[in-house]
């Protein structure tokens, strides 16, 4: 009951300047009492891995909770300096870190490009034209939304081998493109249907080709939808383990995720190298996510509300 009265108080006519009662103050604090501990729980493991990747084996076991540069008041104030880059040196000596990153960048960007390009094209056809079998085609493309493609991996390996693509980056690119298409088509047709017909017809009267209409008129208008599709697919492709493991396990075509998995399996007792490898894989994603998190989450939520 107390909360009820307090809530009213803020809006009542006698109190045009809302004064905060104790009840209101306490209820404003309560969310933070849950959210702050949860935030610590979410960030602590990342913190502990990064911090300890910068120490040598002895220090990471002896003092895991302090950063490599810290201070102490024992025996008078002094700085504690336990920085070591030995883990990173080992990782760069033993693993083709840059090659793995290069592979991941190629696979992710090429797959995203294919999803956006071919997804936009088919969505344009589905939303723009009436043709025999268009409903069936839309349903056919939607089937892949719910069924995980990895259940077909045994056959997929056969197909990929038959095409001469086993242990190659194109295999990963095409499989990820295929797995991203169903949701892309679903989202893009929804948005393309809302692009006003007058706009397109005006362009047609001016003699624009259908391709021109799609690429220079429709696609710029539905940019938010394209961003949503991008965001939906980016992380699953970058982070994927299953298909690199089953379709492209070769050292030369290893992605960061598979490279890390193999490295960690091989050097599981080498703590400094392991922590450095984990941090190396973590940092680019953390930085990019840190910069684009607002766009990223709004892209995700836009897709979710649809």
């Amino acid at each position: 009951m107390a909360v009820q009265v307090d809530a009213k108080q803020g809006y009542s006519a006698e109190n045009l300047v809302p004064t905060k009662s104790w009840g209101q103050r306490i209820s404003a604090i309560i969310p933070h009492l849950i959210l702050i501990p949860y935030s610590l729980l979410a960030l602590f493991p990342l913190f502990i891995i990064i911090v300890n990747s910068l120490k040598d084996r002895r220090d990471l076991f002896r003092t895991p909770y302090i950063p490599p540069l810290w201070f102490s008041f024992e025996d008078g104030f002094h700085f504690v300096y336990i920085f070591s880059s030995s883990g990173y040196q080992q990782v760069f000596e033993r693993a083709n870190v840059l090659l793995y990153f290069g592979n991941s960048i190629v696979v992710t960007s090429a797959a995203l490009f294919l999803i956006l390009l071919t997804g936009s094209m088919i969505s344009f056809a589905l939303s723009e034209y009436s043709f025999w079998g268009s409903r069936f085609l839309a349903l056919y493309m939607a089937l892949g939304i719910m069924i995980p493609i990895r259940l077909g991996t045994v056959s997929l390996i056969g197909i990929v081998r038959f095409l001469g693509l086993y242990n190659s980056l194109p295999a990963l690119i095409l499989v990820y493109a295929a797995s991203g298409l169903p949701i892309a088509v679903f989202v893009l047709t929804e948005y393309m249907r809302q692009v006003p017909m007058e706009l397109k017809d005006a362009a047609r009267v001016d003699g624009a080709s259908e391709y021109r209409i799609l690429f220079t008129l429709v696609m710029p208008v539905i940019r938010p939808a394209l961003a949503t599709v991008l965001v939906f697919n980016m992380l699953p492709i970058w982070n994927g383990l299953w298909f690199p493991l089953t379709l492209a396990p070769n050292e030369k075509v290893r992605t960061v995720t598979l490279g890390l998995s193999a490295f960690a399996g091989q050097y599981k007792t080498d703590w400094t190298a392991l922590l450095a490898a984990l941090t190396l894989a973590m940092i680019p994603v953390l930085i990019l996510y840190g910069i684009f998190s607002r766009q990223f989450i709004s892209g995700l939520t836009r897709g979710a509300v649809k």
Partner: protein
Amino acid sequence: MRTTKRAHWHHLLIFIGPAVLIYSVFLALPLVDSLRLSLYSRVDGEVVFVGLQNFDKLLNNPFFSERFWGALKHNFAWFVLFMAIQNPVGLLLAALVSSPKLKGAAFYRTVIFTPTTMSIVIIGWAWTLMLNPLWGIVNDILNFFRLGAIIPSRGWLGSEDTALIVVILVGIWQYIGLPFVLFLASLTAIDEELIEAARVDGATGWSIFWRIKFPLILPTAGIVAILTFVGNFSAFDNVYVMQGSTAGPDYGTDLLGVFFYRTAFGTLGSVPDLYMGTTIATVMFGIILTGVLLYFFGIQQRLIRD
């Protein structure tokens, strides 16, 4: 009114061709072909049609059936714990963060989703190291909270009683960002005037949530539930990274996805059997399809009608 154009056939072919080709060759065909392969077997070096014998073997041959029922049970536990912990906590966090009066909402939103952006290889290894009694990070924290008594003597990931639950909890910790973002999207989409009106009528925060907001986000809860259901059958990476493809201790963390991988592609000391692999995939396919159909024709229609 929406009008659609009749298309020139060559336009249509160019627009829908690439997407249909990629989708068919790398998604639809392998899935259908995998179903077909489950009816075959390799006998004396030759591939022969065996009807439903593989399924009989899976359910009745103790070598397979024991693993199958064990994995299915663990999948069930995975689903139940995700539904009981991840989704309610995700909803709670979303409800707190969606409050328009909350300070630092953007910060919390970014932080809560951070673990979800990382690959399971990073997260799985980070937790494996922190759970390791040698390093003792998790055990230190439990001791700090006077919970040292619950630490199992053979380590969290080495004890049959705790390994499965710990692997599932790490999964929950990582993927909570998904229900969080989905719930956040639907909560922020609720018209603020509706809430204001209820508040003027004297409703408290608690009753506003349960009487007004909760019914409005029920469709989202349905989507989260079906995503959890489907996701749990693609779950492979968590166990593969933390416990290896033999899903130790003593298959205590085995899931259908891991059983499928082990059977189809083999592991140390076992011969791969592609055809039994596709049989397991077919059974998973059947379970997912049943769940998805039940959702669409049972639950979702009721949610929308209410």
